């Protein structure tokens, strides 16, 4: 369960999600959230976070927005969910319009391009880092999760299946197997 002794308020949640929304150049937002909520502040434990992430990904919608709502609700109920959604959407939405207005000027600078390419490369590390952590956790749960993970990895990484297809095919199988396993335990 979440650490309830030092729960953040809704405005605090809004501020954190807004900061993540505005600093996450190059993507990797869920990696930012992992660091902020699990590793830095320990408001959510790693297992709870990874479960929320898996559900957010299997559910329709933008993963990171889903995850922000999920974490916000976990930590501060309905106001927290609202703070999560608004924080992760509104500030970046305003900023993107501002950037669009200055895009013509910005896009002429070679240095800006180089910096952004490098930032994008470093930001991929956020996704990979989270993949490694999630894989390590999944691998600790036995042979079946390892097999499912490898299949999902091969489907996306080698066969280039679209993500929805992978979720729709592997998701029900994996959940059914987990359901049976839980019944036996």
């Amino acid at each position, binding site marked *: 369960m979440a650490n309830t002794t030092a729960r953040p308020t809704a405005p605090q949640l809004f501020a954190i999600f807004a900061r993540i*929304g505005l600093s*996450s*150049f190059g993507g*990797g937002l869920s*990696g930012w959230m992992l660091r902020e909520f699990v590793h830095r502040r320990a408001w959510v434990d790693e297992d709870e976070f*990874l479960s929320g992430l*898996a*559900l957010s*990904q299997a559910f*329709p*919608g*933008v993963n990171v*927005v889903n995850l922000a709502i*999920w974490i916000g*609700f976990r930590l501060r109920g309905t106001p927290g969910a609202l703070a999560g959604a608004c924080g992760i*959407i509104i500030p*970046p939405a305003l*900023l*993107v*319009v501002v950037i*669009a207005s200055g895009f013509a000027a910005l*896009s002429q600078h070679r240095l800006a391009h*180089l910096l*952004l*390419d*490098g*930032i*994008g*490369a*470093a*930001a*991929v*590390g*956020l*996704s*990979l*880092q989270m993949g490694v952590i*999630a894989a390590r956790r*999944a691998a600790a*749960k036995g042979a079946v999760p390892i097999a*499912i*993970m*490898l*299949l999902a*990895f*091969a489907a*996306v990484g080698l066969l*280039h299946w*679209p*993500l929805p297809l*992978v*979720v*729709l095919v592997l*998701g029900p199988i*994996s*959940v*059914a197997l*987990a*359901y049976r396993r*839980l019944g036996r335990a």
Partner: protein
Amino acid sequence: MRNPLVALALLFAPMSLASVGGGQTLVAGIHQQVVSTSHWLTEAQFVDAFAISRMAPGPGTILVTLIGWDVAGGWGALVASIAIFTPTSLLVYALARIWARTSGQRWQLALEAGLRPVAAGMILASGLVLTQALEGGWVAQAIAVVSTGVLLATKINPLVLMLAGGAAFAAMHGITG
């Protein structure tokens, strides 16, 4: 053309519900609708909007906000954003409520335990695909790998790491031309 605000809402609200696996899966469908079918944006405008949304921080789906802006200004941006984010946000909110009310049920544990390895495999694979697709060849890929290692080993603020990545990449290109 019908009222563009209504048209934006009617386009993006259903699309939101079809976006399993993340916003990136939407881009092809959005392109088709916005450029080929509706002729709201030219190909060049769409490519610009896509590039800007990739460059800007925040969820990649913010692309939709920008399309709304291009089509119908401030109101367009607002309507498009609400249409793409609200339906699924309400669904996830409902899911979070159900989860909190009946926590620890066998079907819930099974869903969590079953979906986690699928997510882990997809995240790892997507990370590798992203690494392979990086602009800037082996230098960029090396930065991605080093960044992963540093993030796993330390509690560094990601922003510091990204700025270092940007500076390192620009410097390498300064040297190699």
